[in-house]
């Protein structure tokens, strides 16, 4: 293991990440704004974008729609396991690379579990259209955690032994206490975090139901965080059990109430997956892996993203019956009196 002054940081370096937070106004102020405003203020071309949720659970879908509408270039996407968020962003690049582009992905898994593989991932990787760096779920989660903890790296037992250590910026050293090898992973401090949660107050305090995934770590590691929430509630209600709060207000820059903001993925207590809709998008991209035309894909984007003013308009197209069915499907897992 050699010391490397040449380490390249794909988001902020640890010292830059510290500096960004030190210089930020961390007061308890009203951070409500429109999604349009949040995306245009806090996302920039070339940013490293940290994506919250896990596969298709609580993915920041509404934020991705808005990013696609506004158009960004040369993004780096950082996540552990993701589905619809990178699929939508990559689909936008595949449909129209002049309007939207991803330069690099740092990830553990890109796919949809029960709903299938990711055709966009295959399309971009197999054609050499993006850089990527493979990690594992724990590796990426630990990298965000190091960033959130203000550390330049974190030790882990993996990736040891396999090829991930050879294709990533992992460094292996002999532990100075045990003499055994241990991996050191560089922190990830994205420029901006995209997070969808169940509830938030106007200052940005967030309550997450179900798995926290790595959302708190991503938010606290990033220089800026955009939060969409199913419910925007009073500070007093939100803090009635302080330990329910997973992301504290100073880590958040924008709060937007966006019901169904993770749709067609799932959001505990609110809605179950709409697998058919996930598969519909995959079905528009998949033929292109074999050289098919982009017509269906472009039509999907025109219909659902470019052709609407807001995420609300997209959700309205889904229709009441379908949304009620998705809500009912989730309700059986966590029956509650309203």
């Amino acid at each position, binding site marked *: 293991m050699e010391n490397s002054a040449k380490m390249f940081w794909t988001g902020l370096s640890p010292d830059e990440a510290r500096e960004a937070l030190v210089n930020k106004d961390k007061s308890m102020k009203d951070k409500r704004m429109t999604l349009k405003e949040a995306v245009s203020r806090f996302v920039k071309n070339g940013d490293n974008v940290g994506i919250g949720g896990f596969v298709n659970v609580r993915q920041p879908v509404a934020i991705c729609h808005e990013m696609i509408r506004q158009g960004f270039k040369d993004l780096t996407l950082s996540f552990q396991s993701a589905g619809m968020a990178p699929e939508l962003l990559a689909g936008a690049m595949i449909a129209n690379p002049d309007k939207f582009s991803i330069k690099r992905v740092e990830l553990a898994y890109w796919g949809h579990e029960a709903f299938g593989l990711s055709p966009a991932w295959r399309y971009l990787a197999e054609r050499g259209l993006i850089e990527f760096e493979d990690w594992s779920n724990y590796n990426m989660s630990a990298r965000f955690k190091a960033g959130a903890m203000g550390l330049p790296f974190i030790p882990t037992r993996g*990736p040891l032994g396999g090829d991930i250590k050879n294709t990533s910026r992992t460094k292996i050293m002999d532990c100075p206490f045990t003499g055994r090898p241990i991996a050191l992973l560089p922190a990830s401090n994205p420029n901006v975090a995209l997070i969808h949660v169940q509830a938030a107050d106007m200052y940005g305090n967030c309550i997450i139901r179900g798995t926290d995934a790595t959302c708190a*770590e991503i938010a606290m590691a990033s220089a800026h965080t955009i939060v969409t929430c199913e419910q925007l509630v009073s500070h007093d209600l939100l803090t009635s059990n302080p330990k329910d709060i997973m992301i504290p207000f100073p880590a958040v820059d924008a709060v937007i109430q966006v019901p169904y903001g993770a749709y067609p993925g799932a959001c505990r207590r609110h809605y179950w997956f709409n697998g058919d809709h996930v598969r519909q998008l995959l079905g528009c991209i998949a033929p292109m892996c074999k050289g098919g035309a982009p017509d269906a894909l472009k039509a999907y984007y025109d219909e659902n993203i470019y052709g609407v003013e807001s995420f609300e308009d997209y959700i309205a197209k889904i229709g009441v019956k379908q949304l009620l069915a998705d809500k009912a499907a989730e309700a059986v897992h966590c029956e509650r009196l309203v």
Partner: protein
Amino acid sequence: MTVSTDYTAQEIIVVAGAKVLEDNKIVFVGTGLPMVASLLASRTHAPGLIPVFEAGAVGPPLKHGLPVSVGDSRTFTGASYVKGLNGAFELTQRGFADFGFIGGAEVDMYGNLNSTMMGDFPAGYQKPKVRLPGSGGASDMAASCERTILIVPHDKKKFNEKLSYVTSPGHLDGSPNARYNAGMQGKGPYRLITTKGIFDFEEKTKRMRLIQMFPGETVESIQAATGFELLIADNVTEFPAPTVEEVRLIREEIDPNGVFVKRAAK
């Protein structure tokens, strides 16, 4: 117990996977068939089995049925602890997972798995022939669960001397204490379940060894579908075909919608 006559390749994998699991143990369950096998185990011989899912849930009763994602709402309800991905993997790194249960697209004789890419490595890493989804949590389970159970469909193209990419480390090069020397924890691959049989890894050489064959297979048919020389245990037995009841449980109770176990006949 009547033997099923129409079970599928995936169904016998599930039944074999379930039987490898021991009651009252903690099993870190990867997405897909391992979830189905764990549910089958807990509904048959292992009611005290404790599943852990990588998005965080520890020990959920899974009263609402098969999860479709290792992070979904079904894994959460009634769980004994849910702290997100770091929480689940830290538990594992600490030694709380008796078993890890993972799949892969390619395996070698030492139980190393590839779920990253097919193609020319390292030269072609950034432009692979086939890009697979990536490690997910598999390489973490491989590095830190006490023992791992692997599932790989048996196919000569998937059983190779040299993997395109080692995503999830098994017994590495099979040398003595290879895992320990690399800094990992746990004993590594314990069983491999394929569409043709069940394998262990011989203690000294750490090489893949056939211990049970599925009905209709022979040592020769299995070796023929394997891209390296298999070890064969002294007393290879036939793994009994799934029973009608086991198949019914999978089809009607555990995965009635065919989320992971497809309905195609064998």
